């Protein structure tokens, strides 16, 4: 039951693109499609240099249990398959396609008839869907719970709690029918009787729209979430919608919950009804350096520079460019980087916004403790990390940290708390590995 309130921070919303319908950008000249835009094994290339591809063609096959296929997002010729370094720091294979500018759709793109549960999971896998809220976990793996009676509730994540980002807002407003179809598929194939759409209450238009669309669907309820970051965090969302606490080391399904982003649901519904896999993405382009902030639909693999050019270029020299929002987004080092499946925003900051906060001595104000949604103790973690005390870090449960950024955001002394938590998690992992070796 929902007995206590989870904390968080009041971040500035800055959702000035919320009223702007997404605009599709013209076919880019080149796309760079990494074969690993998901958690798990990278996909295996099934095309080679010189091959002709069309939109929706499979170019990378899912490998192993946890993986996702990758599809061509433009029509044209495969130039080469090359290593690229992603912003995450990983080096992965990528298929580089020279576009013919025609965006011809592949013959393989045709509606799928889904007979039952197995068929449905297979279709989800073939759609290339991954967690589009940002995590990039293959959706088919998440939905494949075998025994559907374990599912007590499916929670559709429409929280969109990061500042600036409005791409899910536009999806809920402009593609509400697709979300409805997606929900119907879940009801039919996963036999779900309880679907909850969680939306932060700073988006009344989305709440209204979803309530309209699902007015006749008894299985679906729309839950208004408090406007406190991070409502979209999986554990936070589960607690705030169905009151369940996901224990450490367990999955949401262990408490009967599946969380799926609203845009991911749209991808599944579109694939089953039209056959078009995940080849394009609606993203919010915003930030102080962007000339014309807007919502854009762009093929996956489009170079960021092409997307920014479409938004009128930069009004001042960009000093920092982010994949995603400012709380959890990843800074990119190069504007030639490609748009990835799990991107939902591109934020470009001018030099003033990119300036980091001055780091002064910690004053033990305890604001990081007060604001941590998962009730961790970042200041104690920092101290234990400084001592390289892996045992203490395990007691402090640094492994639970979801890196939402509340602690570092609220810190008056500019401590890099999230970064320290990441390093501390790594330290604990190494420590356990060593211990395991010694004992075994």
């Amino acid at each position: 039951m929902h007995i206590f309130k989870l904390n968080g921070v009041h971040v500035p919303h800055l959702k000035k693109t919320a009223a702007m319908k997404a605009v599709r950008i013209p076919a880019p000249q080149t796309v760079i499609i990494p074969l690993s835009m998901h958690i798990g094994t990278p996909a295996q290339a099934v095309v080679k240099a010189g091959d002709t591809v069309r939109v929706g063609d499979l170019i990378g096959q899912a490998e192993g249990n946890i993986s996702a296929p990758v599809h061509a997002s433009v029509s044209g010729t495969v130039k080469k398959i090359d290593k690229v370094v992603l912003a995450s720091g990983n080096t992965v294979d990528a298929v580089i396609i020279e576009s013919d500018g025609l965006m011809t759709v592949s013959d393989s793109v045709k509606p799928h008839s889904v007979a039952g549960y197995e068929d449905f999971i297979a279709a989800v896998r073939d759609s290339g869907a991954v967690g589009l809220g940002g995590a990039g976990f293959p959706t088919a793996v998440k939905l494949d719970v075998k025994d559907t009676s374990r599912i007590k509730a499916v929670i559709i994540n429409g929280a969109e709690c990061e500042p600036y980002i409005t791409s899910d807002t536009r999806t809920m407003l402009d593609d509400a029918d697709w979300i409805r179809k997606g929900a119907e598929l879940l009801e039919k194939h996963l036999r779900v009787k309880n679907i909850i759409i969680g939306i932060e209450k700073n988006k009344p238009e989305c709440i209204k729209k979803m309530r309209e669309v699902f007015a006749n669907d008894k299985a679906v309820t729309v839950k208004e979430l408090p406007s406190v970051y991070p409502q979209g965090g999986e554990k936070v969302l589960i607690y705030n919608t169905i009151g369940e606490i996901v224990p450490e080391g367990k999955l949401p399904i262990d408490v009967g919950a599946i969380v799926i982003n609203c845009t991911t649901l749209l991808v599944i519904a579109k694939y089953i009804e039209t056959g078009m896999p995940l080849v394009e993405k609606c993203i919010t382009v915003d930030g102080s350096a962007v000339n014309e902030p807007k919502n854009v639909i762009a093929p996956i693999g489009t170079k960021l520079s092409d997307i920014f050019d479409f938004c009128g270029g930069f009004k001042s020299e960009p000093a920092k460019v982010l994949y995603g929002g400012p709380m959890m987004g990843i800074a990119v080092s190069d504007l030639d980087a490609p748009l990835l499946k799990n991107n939902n925003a591109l934020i470009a900051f001018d030099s003033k916004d990119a300036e980091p906060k001055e780091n002064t001595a910690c004053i033990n104000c305890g604001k990081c403790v007060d604001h941590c949604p998962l009730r961790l103790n970042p200041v104690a973690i920092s101290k234990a990390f400084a001592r390289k005390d892996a045992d203490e870090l395990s007691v402090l449960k640094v492994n639970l940290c979801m890196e939402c950024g509340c602690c570092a955001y609220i810190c008056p002394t500019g401590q890099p708390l999230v970064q320290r938590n990441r390093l501390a998690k790594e330290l604990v992992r190494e420590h356990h590995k060593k211990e395991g070796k010694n004992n075994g």
Partner: protein
Amino acid sequence: MAKLTVSPSPHIATAKTTTSIMADVIVALIPAIVASAIIFGVKSLAVIATSVVSAVLAEYIFNLCCGKKQTVKDLSAVVTGLLLALNLPANIPLWQTAVGAVFSIVVVKCLFGGIGQNFANPAITGRIFMLIAFSSTMTASVFPKADVVSTATPLAVLGGQEGELPSLVDLFIGNCGGALGEVSACALLVGGIYLLARGVIKWQTPITYILTVFVLTFIVDFDINFALAQILSGGLFIGAFFMATDYATTPNTKWGKVVFGIGCGLITVLIRLFGSYPEGVSFSILLMNILTPYIQKWTRTKPFGGVRA
């Protein structure tokens, strides 16, 4: 094209800084400063100015000598100087004030590693140092209206000394003997409410501290006037709102703050009623400062979804 900055998330942060927090504390102390100037006259301002200037200079010179990054702009030395001065009697010689301020900053704060690293409240420890080093001038409290004559403070009267106890109204507005900044409970309350409203301090410590003192002194002989006089006199309000809420030296957890407040209240009452000193606020906070790391550990938040190893 210039290089893009790559840094770990989050990429935005609150505008609050140590300096802005300290500035809030300074603003919150303005009513008490004004009250002390009205009650004790210009000499109170001389004591305050001496204390603040000495504190800031001490930190500046210490950092300079030790080759440390200059930290005076965080304003914490100003706050320490102010709090120390407000805990001193109006007739304190200025040189003693300066010695106390230098002790607070150098010995209690800087030698432990500067802001955030000290385990004891600098202003309180400085005051206790002065109480021992300059006991005659420190205990000679001045009655505002006849400022040459030393009189017993209300607490001393409550403790059984000869003298007349001021009315509760006089105690509330500060028309009584005592240290510069502690006499006007009203001015301190205004400052405390400002700090609460600005989110600089939390309610737990001040409320539990004052309430504990009230309840314990009330059950002594069920005299509501005695209990009210106890909470309105001495350094309780300045201690509860401004010293027992110091970040570095008090627990950072919600329940830790409650424990801290109750502990301070208990020790204060024990000293006031049974000790040989009339006042126990400074000692109680210093003693609880020492327990802070333990309280902090005992009252740690339980991680959401955490399973015991």
